[in-house]
């Protein structure tokens, strides 16, 4: 086999493995039959049923609110943490700080969830919406910090120095120069944080309380009872939201790339 064809085969098999299960799930959400294994024709009845399932819709609403809030707080904290890591050499106990940024990325969720729960119990906080937000903020901020940090290390410091040199005070410089330029990374970090929060089952299960059931918790409890087309529909909807988000992001990147190429062309013909 030619190397090119071999590569194509490997990639095809690999991507088929990644995508076929999701595709099947999406297809069967439009199945008219209640039996997952029998194709009974195209139907959107499960979406209607899901729409009228109040418990499910409540859970979806809670999930979205948690995700927006924790992603937003997490993005602010994560961006600050990234700045601290990249810009400030003399952080007290720097090792501890960077360890606390990296560890949540790989920490088994059961440990993070349990330990946070015990903290909330120890200080006597009623568990519910806000405890989930705090828990999600804590682990998503670390992802944001990593994403923003990788942008900051390649950031040309002389841009900030130029602004200072031209009379712009440091805080203003951050908002006028640094933030606009690292914005793509901050937005990417927010999106990552949002979907991570949207997805999370384990940490939310530990830290939630009455009245704050999130969608993954709801889906999980139903999945344990068996596969139902309604869950397929809910999952498809979630996948749809995320896919649209990712597509918008990639189109934006493509456009920026196109713009950059046009600029380069202008630059070479400018002289």
């Amino acid at each position: 086999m030619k190397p090119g064809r071999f590569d194509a085969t490997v990639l095809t098999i690999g991507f088929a493995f990644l995508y076929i299960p999701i595709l099947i799930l999406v297809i069967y959400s439009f199945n008219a039959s209640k039996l997952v294994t029998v194709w009974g024709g195209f139907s959107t009845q499960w979406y209607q049923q899901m729409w009228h399932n109040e418990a499910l819709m409540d859970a979806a609403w809670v999930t979205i609110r948690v995700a927006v809030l924790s992603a937003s707080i997490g993005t602010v904290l994560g961006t600050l943490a990234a700045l601290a890591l990249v810009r400030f050499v003399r952080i007290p106990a720097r090792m501890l700080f960077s360890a606390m940024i990296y560890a949540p990325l790989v920490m088994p969720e059961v440990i993070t969830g349990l330990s946070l729960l015990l903290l909330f119990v120890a200080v006597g906080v009623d568990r519910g919406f806000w405890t989930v937000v705090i828990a999600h903020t804590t682990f998503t901020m670390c992802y944001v910090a990593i994403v923003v940090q990788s942008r900051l290390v390649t950031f040309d410091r002389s841009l900030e120095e130029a602004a200072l040199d031209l009379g712009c005070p440091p805080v203003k410089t951050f908002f006028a120069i640094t933030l606009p330029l690292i914005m793509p990374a901050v937005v990417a970090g927010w999106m990552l944080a949002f979907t991570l929060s949207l997805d999370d089952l384990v940490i939310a299960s530990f830290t939630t309380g009455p009245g704050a059931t999130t969608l993954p918790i709801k889906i999980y409890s139903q999945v344990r009872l068996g596969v139902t087309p309604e869950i397929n529909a809910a999952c498809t909807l979630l996948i749809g939201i995320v896919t649209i988000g990712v597509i918008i992001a990639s189109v934006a990147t493509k456009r920026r790339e196109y713009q950059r190429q046009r600029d380069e062309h202008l630059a070479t013909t400018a002289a």
Partner: protein
Amino acid sequence: MAKSLGPVKRKFTPWTDPGAQPFIRFENITKRFGNFVAVDNLTLDIYEKEFFSLLGPSGCGKTTLMRMLAGFEEPTEGRILLQGKDISGVPPYRRPTNMMFQSYALFPHMSVEKNIAFGLEQDKLPKGEIETRVQEMLKLVKLEQFARRKPSQLSGGQRQRVALARSLAKRPKVLLLDEPLGALDRKLREETQFELMDIQHTLGLTFLIVTHDQEEAMTVSDRIAVMDKGIIVQVATPAEIYEAPNSRYVADFIGDINLVEGKVVSTSAAAGQAGRLALDCDGLKVAVEQECPALAGNTVAFAIRPEKVRISLDTPAQTDVNAVRGEVWDIGYLGDFSLFLVRTEDGRVLRAAQANVSRLVDRPITFGDQVWLHWSADAGLVLTR
């Protein structure tokens, strides 16, 4: 682009006037980064309207010195005076200096005019005035038709001009230029050097330039400070630096030179007075006419630039008191010059440059020829440091 020549330059030597007040004074400046001493107890005066260069290899402390003036670094010891006022502790955004960065540091998300206006906006000038000043600057660097472009839509040379315009827009007391032409190709660099001098002259500003390119420093500067390992080795005009280097380091760093170690045999005058020195450089006897620096017996270096060494097939005339025989060992043809590497009878290699004044392809002197090298008593120099 039509070259507009500015007013004829005048002789400008405030440093020789004992009554002149320095515009910028670095006073016993030391800067340490951890254990590394970047600048070591350095004192330097720069005068108003001077075009001053800090020249040296990378890591010699020249950029650190400039950054301390801009306010990005604070000196560990010593103080910096601007017009007699200590500016220690003044943050960069409150200093009347502006800097042109090596990378240009143009804000990529702002148009050319926004970039130029940025510093003026920080001063909260009225809109109309900002507008006029930006137009003025665009005209100065001949970029009027590019005002609305983004930096990424400009060529390297144009970016360099925007950076210059931006740093000049606030009419700083001192303009700092960090390797300003390093990213340009040779042709453009030479052109821009003259433009820089022109702008400096027209606006009557003080320019401080950091460079590792000796040609650039020689071309643009009124004075040059040659730096090495955090100290200044010599401060002088370009001509003095080239013709009368004060040390082996400066002689070797600027241009091409023959350096021969030797001993002073006799001097005809007391130290500090003009006279004739006789040197013995391991058998090579050399006579030099200059201010006598060293007493007999001291180890010194004899330095002579290749273009001041004449090369000929015949026995030299009596006017050149120094002469040595040798064999042409190698020839470097440089177009305008040919550089001859001649192995003398005692085994050392000396370099002699000869201007190629005719279009002959086959030069009269070639490999293996027995030749004479000869020079006058005032062509070379004795270095004690």
